[in-house]
């Protein structure tokens, strides 16, 4: 089974039928709500780090008053969406791949097939929908948390003027940046889900427990790499 065959069938399954709603809701909650704790923690530290590093870099040539601008561009346009994608992608992708691989090695997927239910419709489509809708929400949420953290670090720790910080932020970050972030989020979410479903779906009974580990590992690595590369491509298209 090749990746392109899988993608084609997944797309057909995703767009020709209404996915089973209970499955969709479950995976939406799993992917979205389940990632919030982790995401908050990590993006908060990333936001702090971004401000501290920006400050450390700018202070060398006396440009520390541009910190707001730096945090806006660096964070909203680049760091937070891609970090949300990589972190949540690792978590969500690993879960999807592991659960599908586990269903394959215990013949649950074949059981579905024998019951006359297409696993592409029943298993893959709702996961694709759920993750591609959860990810942009997570990216938007990451923007908020990250900016708040950067603001805290800049104003309370590094002594940057708060009015100045916000003014710069407003000057550089517009609605189109947030829209671009959401767009990136949908793309990242779909990518994470399709890669994870592919690796999980491809396992077979004879792979055993090892197969679950391999599928999980591949899903994590491939989705992280693909998100980072896709981010570069999207940034090049959107901002150059």
């Amino acid at each position, binding site marked *: 089974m090749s990746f392109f065959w899988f993608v084609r069938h997944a797309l057909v399954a995703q767009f020709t039928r209404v996915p089973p709603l209970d499955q969709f809701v479950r995976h939406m909650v799993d992917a979205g709500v389940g990632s919030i704790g*982790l995401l908050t*923690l*990590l993006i908060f*530290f*990333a936001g*702090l*780090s971004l401000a*501290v*590093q920006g*400050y*450390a*870099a700018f202070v*060398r*040539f006396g440009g520390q008053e*541009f910190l707001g*601008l*730096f945090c806006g*561009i*660096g964070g909203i*346009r*680049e760091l937070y969406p891609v970090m949300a994608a*990589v*972190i949540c992608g*690792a*978590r969500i992708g*690993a*879960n999807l*791949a*592991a*659960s599908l*691989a*586990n269903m394959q*090695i*215990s013949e649950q997927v074949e059981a579905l097939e024998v019951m006359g239910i297409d696993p592409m419709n029943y298993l893959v489509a709702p996961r694709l929908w759920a993750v591609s809708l959860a990810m942009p929400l997570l990216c938007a949420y990451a923007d908020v948390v990250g900016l708040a953290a950067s603001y805290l670090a800049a104003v309370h720790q590094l002594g940057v003027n708060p009015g100045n910080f916000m003014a710069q932020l407003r000057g550089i970050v517009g609605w189109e940046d947030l829209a671009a972030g959401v767009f990136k989020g949908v793309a990242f979410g779909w990518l994470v889900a399709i890669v994870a479903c592919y690796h999980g779906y491809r396992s077979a009974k004879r792979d*055993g*427990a*090892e*197969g*679950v*580990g*391999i*599928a*999980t*590992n591949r899903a*994590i*690595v491939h989705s*992280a*790499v693909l998100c*980072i*590369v896709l*981010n*570069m491509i999207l*940034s*090049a298209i959107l*901002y*150059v």
Partner: protein
Amino acid sequence: MIAGVRRFFALLGEILSFAVEVARCMIQGPRFWAETIRLADVLMRRCLIPVGLAVAPVGAVISLQGVSVFRMFGADGILSSMLAPAIFRQYSPALASVMVAAQAGSSIAARIGTMKVRGQIDALAVMSVDPIRYVVVPGFVACLFITPLLNILTTALGLVSGWFFAVPVSGINPGAFTANLYSQVTLVDLWVGIGKCFFFGGAVGLIAGFLGLRTTGGAAGVGKSANNTVVYTIILILVADYLVSMLLLELGL
């Protein structure tokens, strides 16, 4: 919430005592050097491409976004003085470590977890082979050494891709780029990067071994261990990264 905090510290305690156990096993033999070197070789090969693919785009994005910012002030010549420390100190070590966690860490945890759920770990123990010495220590040592090595490669790669998107793509003066590139990089940046990688790499190997050995719940448990290894190490890397940045800023380095 309080229960969660309690559980967190209980887990931390277990990991620390596991680390002590691993250290003890490393000091007292027997040591499985051949296995360690084989594993390091395998993991290094497997990590090379993902790590490279993760770091190169970051250099590119810093250059692209940096150019657009510095252009506003007509100061695009000094872009490289921001790019180099960011890559050296920050993005290359952090991303190399995250990708080592994703690739090497999750595969080590999955391998050990598979052995665990199949009863092979118990079988080793029954045959009087210490599972920590035999399966955990080689992975730990391998991760400890491959991460800094990978970091050296990715630092170079990040700079090259940053250069590519700054000079040929965005038309920054090549002379200014190279002149400013080293103006802000010190030996400290180099050592900080390598030191962080050493620490993060060890943490990846340790957490992978720890979670792998604790795997329960059959095949699904294997996936969970692989997943948790990555999540825990990413948390550690980001938090430690921030603390190190703060420390360096305080020290004025």
